[in-house]
């Protein structure tokens, strides 16, 4: 991990650390349960798990203030949870239920929570970067002292949208931090096989933007960098790139066993030596937090996930009568009322009677 910053001295005290640990464990337990529920066919579509990446996720989200914005790609369960979206609403969204944070319209990849300034959950690699750049532009236009944290994977940095967004952010002095979660593989293609410049953070230089690489499994390092760079973005309108080097334990999605392109030894080595949750557990003990308090936090996370499944299971399926709700803004029904004649068979009842803009 050339150039990655690792902290020597833990800067986080035991109380805050236990709270962040709790968030990391919740994320891990949630992903473990999501995989179970996927295999039980309660969850469909794609389901991208982030087990192993908890320090990068929780540490960066912790650097956000209440008025800051969060935008992510599709590996987003952990980000939503870290931002405070109730696990019930996240699991219900994965189950495709009305009680989900997107009312069953988005699924695993399209979580959001406008009240918490979490603006999605986007499924096209790098497509969220221009959108996040626009959030930063909007925040500036509205004179808010808000920063945007835009998460992307290592696979996204070879897309044109990455270069275009970095250019615009630097050119217009926008308060945005691009968080590259470098988990070593874009699907099954390693960073080295995809990027001519595998030290991704260095690409920021091309736009005269600050970039740095951190050990994404070291919570203290992540928190320090995200806090510093988000503060700077907020107060000085300076964009930045953080490359958090981490590792994904599971496959690209639940459908990928994750062994065709990497060795079992490699996965085992990360789990044994660099597991972000084990590292935090050790630090908590070193900082004098009693074992039973740590165990209590772990039990609470398991219980929260159990309740999330219970809620998701009991949440109703979205009503077919409301299929078209949300597609257009309220009031659009009047604009569409003359479109009905000659519409394709069956479409009239679905499109025009199913809650369109009403």
């Amino acid at each position, binding site marked *: 991990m050339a150039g990655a910053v690792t902290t020597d001295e833990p800067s986080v005290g035991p109380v805050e650390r236990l709270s962040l640990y709790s968030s990391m464990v919740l994320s891990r337990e949630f992903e473990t349960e999501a995989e179970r529920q996927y295999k039980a066919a309660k969850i469909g579509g794609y389901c991208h798990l982030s087990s192993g990446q908890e320090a990068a996720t929780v540490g960066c989200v912790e650097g956000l203030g209440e008025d800051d*914005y969060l*935008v992510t790609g599709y590996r987003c369960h952990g980000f939503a949870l870290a931002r405070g979206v109730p696990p019930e609403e996240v699991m219900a969204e994965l189950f495709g239920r009305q009680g*989900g*944070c*997107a*009312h*069953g*319209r*988005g699924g695993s990849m*399209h979580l*959001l929570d*406008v009240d918490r300034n979490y*603006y*999605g*959950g*986007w*499924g*096209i690699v790098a*497509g969220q*970067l*221009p*959108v*996040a*750049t*626009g*959030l*930063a*532009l*909007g*925040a500036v*236009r*509205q004179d808010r002292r808000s920063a945007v944290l835009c998460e992307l994977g290592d696979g996204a940095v070879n897309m*044109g*949208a990455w270069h*275009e*967004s970095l*250019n*615009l952010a630097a*050119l217009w002095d926008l308060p945005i931090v691009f968080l590259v979660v470098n988990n070593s593989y874009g699907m099954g293609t390693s960073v080295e096989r995809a990027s001519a410049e595998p030290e991704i953070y260095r690409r920021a230089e091309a736009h005269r933007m600050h970039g740095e690489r951190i050990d994404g499994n070291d919570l203290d390092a992540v928190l320090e960098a995200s806090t510093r760079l988000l503060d700077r973005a907020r107060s000085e309108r300076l964009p930045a790139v953080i490359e958090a080097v981490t590792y994904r334990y599971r496959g690209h999605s639940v459908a990928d066993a994750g062994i065709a392109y990497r060795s079992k030894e490699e996965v085992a080595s990360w789990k044994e030596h660099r597991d972000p949750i084990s590292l935090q557990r050790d630090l908590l003990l070193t900082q004098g937090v009693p074992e039973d308090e740590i165990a209590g936090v772990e039990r609470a996370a398991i219980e929260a996930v159990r309740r999330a499944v219970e809620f998701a299971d009991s949440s109703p399926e979205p009503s077919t009568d409301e299929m078209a*709700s*949300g*597609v*257009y*803004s*309220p*009031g*659009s029904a*009047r*604009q*569409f*009322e*003359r*479109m*009905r*004649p*000659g*519409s*394709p068979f069956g479409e009239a009842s679905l*499109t025009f009677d199913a809650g369109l803009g009403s």
Partner: protein
Amino acid sequence: MTYREAIRLALREEMNRDSSVFVMGEEVGLFDGSYKVTSGLMDEFGPDRVRDTPISEEAFVGAGVGAAMIGERPVVEIMTLNFLLVAMDQVINHAAKVGAMFGGEVRVPMVIRTPNGAGNQLTAQHSQSFDGWFAGTPGLKVIAPSNPRDARALLKAAIRDDDPVLFIENLPLYKQKGEVDTADDSVGEIGRAAVAREGSDLTMVSHSFATTRCLDVAERLESEHGYSVEVIDLRSLRPLDVETVSESVARTNRAVCVEEGWPTYGVTAELAARIQRACFDDLDAPVERVGMAEVPLPYAKSLEIEAMPNTDRIIAAAIATLEGAK
């Protein structure tokens, strides 16, 4: 005033009315607009509200989406519709998806303005009309007015609308003049076609510059052939006002649909499908379609003229519909 001036007037009026409205695009400010639509606006509103962008459509269209998601009302200018192709992911997979995919929790009140059209020997990459592609996408609204009055009223409606609107202009229309009552500040209604000319023998359905062509053709069909031709100006492609079209065809019993783009899978294909279903018992002839010849537009002037939906081709289609193919 001209179509170009009417759009500028609408922009100015909406920017004066609402500080969240801002213009963004290539050469919209210092250069005064590639086609001078935004001429003078940077001096009037400053570089923050008339924001020049680099040549980077994917980024600034997406930036419009993001800004709109938190309540700004960006009006993004794309130099021509052809260049919107490099930002298609942002238009189709982002702007059009937000409302539904996020369960109605957030909206994108954004306008993308862009001209299309052919006829200036701009050749294959700069002469295309993809209106039908966008109009076939749930989540978008697509407006394409044919005259200055509608351009002003409907652009104001588009800016005030809470959904992403593609506002399609047209290069040959920019210089076209028409009556605009500057004292009448009213906002147009989206999803309403207009009867641009009344008639009883044939209905011609069109939008944007094709409406100009159809009005010319209608005059000639009357003066040279004695036919009374009704011309429908769709104005809005999504929502599509099929009611006005089908009411007209039910009276005239004949329809010719005209567009600037390729008719295969195009706007006229959709119209023909709707008309045959809504007016099956009324039709006395097959629905005819006229559009761009199905080739990438050639450079040579002689070829370009022949490839476009020119007056002669529309007249031939109308006569065939009225008298039967000979």
